[in-house]
Each structure stands twice: as structure tokens, then as C-alpha cells.
């Protein structure tokens, strides 16, 4: 019967009461596991660039200024908060925070930049062990992503540029 079903439908609605949240005045706390904006800890980071190599959105850039200094830049523009960077980080230097309301007029607000001191591996200069062959470092050796134009560079060089910022040694890798 249509009339009884109309009555039942009305009951479904009445029983529910008011469910609309008072957002944004009272934000609902996010659960423990929530994957928000990744936060990089420069104290823990060893500069292996596993995060940069495994970021599906290619939002983490790496620039080797010289043998001793590596810059890691998180851009955060296209970041989908998937959390792969924090999964593959061997030092647990990346935590998925609870921040998600990160809309901004100035994109540099979401950038994070790490200037890392790198100790020299006497054997090869830049090499790190991957967790599994699927997470292998696709770009080995020295990296020269274009920080100025925020562009990922697809080829990697195993030696430093001819005129590095600091006079430095040159090591061939492959």
C-alpha cells in the first residue's frame, strides 16, 4: 500500500532527527589513523629520498648541492595524502598529521624544505637499501630536480654538475 509506505518513510525521517554537524564552527575530530598532510622531521631524515622515489604524485623534489648537502623539498600541491612516503621512510621521519584543511592562497604555505647534511659513503657516494625490489630507488646517484620551477627531472646523473656550489669530489657510480 502506498499510503502505509508513505507513513513508514515519514517515520524513517522523523526517527533520524537532526544529524547535520555544526561544521565549521565545531569541527569533528578526525580518527587516530587519519591520513592528513605529511610532516617531515629534519632531525630524523637521512636523505635517502625513498619518499621522493615512491611519491605517486611526484611532489617531493631532491637537489644535491654538493657531496655534503642535499635539499629535499615537499611541494604539497598535488599531494593526495596517500601516505606512501611515510610507509617507505626507513627512519619514520614522516608522519601523516591530522591536518586536512590546507586550502591557501599562497602555495608556499604548504611547502616544506629540508636542508640535509649528508655524510659521505666512501664506496658510492649515494646509495641506500630499498625495502623491497618494488620500492627500489628508480633514480640512483645524484639528483638534480628543478627546485626553482618546481619540476621533477626524469633523468638522474651519477656525478655532480661540473660546477657545484661547493668545490667537491666527483664519484662515478655505475
Amino acid at each position: 500500500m502506498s499510503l502505509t509506505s508513505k507513513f513508514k518513510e515519514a517515520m524513517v525521517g522523523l526517527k533520524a532527527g537532526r544529524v547535520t554537524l555544526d561544521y565549521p564552527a565545531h569541527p569533528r575530530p578526525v580518527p587516530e589513523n587519519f591520513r592528513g598532510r605529511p610532516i617531515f622531521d629534519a632531525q630524523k631524515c637521512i636523505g635517502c629520498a625513498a619518499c621522493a622515489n615512491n611519491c605517486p604524485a611526484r611532489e617531493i623534489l631532491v637537489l644535491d648541492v654538493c657531496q655534503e648537502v642535499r635539499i629535499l623539498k615537499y611541494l604539497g600541491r598535488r599531494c593526495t595524502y596517500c601516505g606512501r612516503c611515510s610507509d617507505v621512510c626507513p627512519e619514520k621521519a614522516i608522519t601523516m598529521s591530522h591536518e586536512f584543511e590546507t586550502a591557501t592562497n599562497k602555495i608556499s604555505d604548504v611547502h616544506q624544505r629540508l636542508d640535509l647534511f649528508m655524510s659521505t659513503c666512501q664506496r658510492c657516494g649515494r646509495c641506500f637499501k630499498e625495502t623491497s625490489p618494488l620500492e627500489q630507488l628508480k633514480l640512483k646517484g645524484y639528483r638534480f630536480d628543478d627546485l626553482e620551477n618546481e619540476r621533477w627531472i626524469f633523468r638522474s646523473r651519477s656525478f655532480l654538475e661540473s660546477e657545484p656550489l661547493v668545490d667537491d669530489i666527483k664519484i662515478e657510480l655505475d
Partner: protein
Amino acid sequence: MKAREKLDQLKAKLGPAIRRADIPSDHCLFVFVEASALKAVCEYVFRDLDARFITSIGADDRSFSGSFLVAHNFAFDRDHLLCSILTEIPASQPCVESISTVVPAANWAERELRDLVGIELSGHPYPKRLVLPDGWPDGVHPLRKDIPWNFVPDDYDDEREFKFDEPPEGCTVVPFGPFHPTLDEPAHFRLYVEGERVRGCEYRGFMVHRGIEKLAESVLGYNDIPIMAERICGICGCVHNVTYAQAVEAAAALQAPPRAEYLRSILLELERLHSHLLWVGLACHIVGFDTLFMQAFRIREPVMWIAEKITGNRKTYGLCVIGGVRRDLTPALEDELRQVLARLETEWQAVTAAVLQDRNIQKRTRGVGVADRNLVKEAGLIGPVARAAGVGIDCRRDHPYAAYDRVDFDVITAPDGDVWSRLVVRAREVFESIKIIRQCLDKMESGPIQLEIKDELPVGRLGISSVEAPRGECHHFVITGENNRPRRWRVRAPTYQNLQGVPAMIKDQQLADMTISLGSIDPCFSCTDRLETIDLRSGAVKVWSPEELLKLARARGIAAESSAKESDES
């Protein structure tokens, strides 16, 4: 045994045409045939062996084997068997005989491989451009390996216009899409209308083609792709994520641990729950019954929240990597999940008890958008659309994956094939999903959730996988490759097949029923390609051409941008 049996049948009938075959498992069969016999083999498989057509795949394999690959995938649903008919085509003459005349469901898939891989089709009944944008130059095929991922053609022709077909005699054209209030995705239907009746239509879609397959084959790595794959769909993303992982696992002969399989099943069913609840809500919204639209969304919300608690996000779960899943379920979350399901069950019982007796909805949906068994076969329709036409196909039962072989559930069917049947099927499937999740929670054993992968994945292996998405079967085809990424990855989402059935579903019915017919499979509409302005003072009418409109819009855009810049500087 079934795979062997089918191969023997094929050999008995078309022996000389078969070059070689591969049976990686009981449920999977790859047959390489002569290019000249491709059509005959497909006809035999589709008509005589009564297989269901899944999709066609083209691959540029020139740098490895010196030839192009074309595959037509079929499913033997009763025999639990997925079958791929492959053929190699010489690089010097990339041309293959079209199978669309004998397998009508292959129409789009064949045109797609022609557009993207550049394999010419001889004898295709409707060889119109499908995927590439109108201005894209002829003879440039983006999925070929010599085209870089970020290729922008120099001779892209903005001015080139799409040529629509001539409408039949006595019909008026009513444009439907790419934007319409009731539907969420851009697709254009050019309806041929006679009075109030729709007599036919021309479809034009692929406006949001993002080239994800190309990215995967040239830039991403094996474990980046699952994250990208789940962004293929805004509602059933987890399905693509799991299908991709399973296809690669099948190709590389990896087996995810049992606990990971249960977790995959649980999350897939959670996704089905929220997707079906969303669809029932939207369908009611389309027919003008907003009370249930609101209530369905209210009931759906706790499902989103529990998914957020388990995976860290309410929609993009980021569940799978190859060889397992990323996050485990804690006992506390298990309990909470049970509570959510219990509440959902009682609330949904109340809703179905009311709605399934509601005569108003029935009047609006019975006999509308009918897809009968014949159309299901010919157009390759799947999922709730097929089940509502009495064709009981469900990959969870027919091609068991994850933990579905260890749970009991019913495949819900309805006899009439109309929108009402689809509503009933989806409403009842909610209870089956709840049942499945409960069984998974009971049976789930503790253990690792990720397989330890010690070696690089083998190169050049084929893998296929089908997963029952909320909208129907989702199918992925993978050829493993070098540099830690697949050589070819082909995605066939369920709507790809179901949309091809829409022209037949809406034929000869009321124009007003178009929205719900289209909505009942889940895809879009209303734009005019011109704009009229009337000068109020003089009453003069100016008709704007698309070019003028574009110019106007761009001029405005630039003005807005520069004013924003100024305010920024000040």
C-alpha cells in the same frame, strides 16, 4: 580442467589457427591465434561457446617482439574461466579485422585501440573517433611507446569540429549533456526526438580522459599505480586498486596472504555498501523523491566514517600494494565495524520495507529503461543492470578473488530488466554485503598482511583480473615490464560496457525518462553549444558562436587573473 576443456574445443574446431596457448591456472586461459583467424575464433567463442565479451586491448609491443598485440578478453561465467584471445600484428602493417560485426559489445573497445594504439580496423561498422579529442591530429597515437608521456602535438587544431551524424527523418535533435543538473559527469547524448519519444541517440564522451594508462606505463612504478588507480573513479576507487594489484599478482604468480585477502573483501564490500546507498539516494533524487535521497545519504555516512577509521580516508582507502594491503584491522575497529553494520541493517530494513511497497516510485520506474537478456548479451552489460534482467552474473561468485570463495552469499536477480528491478537488486544487495563482511570478520585469521617480495617481478608476463564493482565487473589487463613498471595496463571500468547499452534502453520511450534510465546505470547531461543574448533596449538578438564565446570567456579569465595579481601585490 575447464581451461583445458575450452582449449581442446577451440583446437578441435579451429586447430590450424591456434599458434600457442598458455594455461597459467585453472581459471585463466591465453590463446595466441593467427591474425587472419581472429574474427572466426572470437565468433566461435562468443556465439557457440556462449562466452561474455569483456574488452579489447591493443598494445605496442614493437620494441620487444617487433609487433603490435591485440587481445579480446572473454569470460565463461559458469565455468569460472577468464579467457584472452591474443594475436600479433606485424609492425609494418598495423591492421586487424574488426570483430564488432559478430561481437557488437566490442564496438567501443575496438575504436579505443584504433585511436590510442593506432591499429587500423578493417570492416568496423562505425569507425568514428571515440577517445581522442576533436583537435588531435590524425596519425598520432598516444599509447605508442615512441610518444612521450607529456607529448603535446604541435598541430593540435582547436578549430576542428566534431561531425555529428545526420538525425533520422522527422526527428528533432535535443542535446543532452555534457552538463546537467541531475548527473555528475560530463557526457554528451545527442538525442533524436520525435514528439516526446526518443528514437535514437549519438553518444560523445571521453571528455575527462586523463591518460592514466600512459602515465602508468611511462612514469609510475608498480606500487605507485594502485594509488593512482583508485582515483579512476570517484565512488568505487578501491575496486580499481584491488583489481590492479590482483592482475599484477596473477602475472607475477604472487599470492597475497589470507588476512590481506579478507581485508580486501571487507573493504570492497564497505565500498559497495556506500556506493549502493549513494545510488539509491541519487535515483530517488532524479525521480523527485528527495526524502529518501536525504535519508540514504544519512544512513551512508557511518559507513564512510568507519572506512576513514580503518584506512585513514573516507573514500580513497589507499588499501592495496602489490602482495597485500597496507593497514590492518584492530580488534577495537572490528567491534566498531560490527556495530555500524548492525545499525545499518536495521535502518536499511526500515527503508526497504517502506520503499519497495511505494507505488509512486514504481510508477516512475517500472517498464522504464528496459534492458532484456538479449541486450545484456549483445552489448556485454554487467553488474546490477545484467542481474536486474535475470542474468545472474557476479564476479564474486563466478570468478572468485580475495576471500569470496570462503563466504556464502546470494546473487540477487530480478526478472524485468527495468529501472525498478535495478533498484530492487541494489537495495537487496546491501544486505548481502553486510552478510559477507560479518563472515569475513568471523573467519579472518591473524597473520601477515603483506607478502615479502624478494625478487624483481618477471618481465613480459600477462595477467588479468576481474572484480565485481558496485556497478558491475571491473577488469584489468597487465603485461609486466622493465624499469619496475608494467609495459601495458588496460582498465575496463563497468560503465564502459553499460553505457553502450543506453541507446537501446532509451529507444522509443519518453524523453522525461531519459534521466532515470541513464541514472540507473550510473553515468550524465544539458548544454547548448551556443548562447543567445538579447539587447533589452533595442530587442536585437545576437547569437554567439562557440569561438566568440571562447574568446569572451578567455578575455574574462585573463582580466580576473590580472586583477587578482594586482590585489596580491598591493
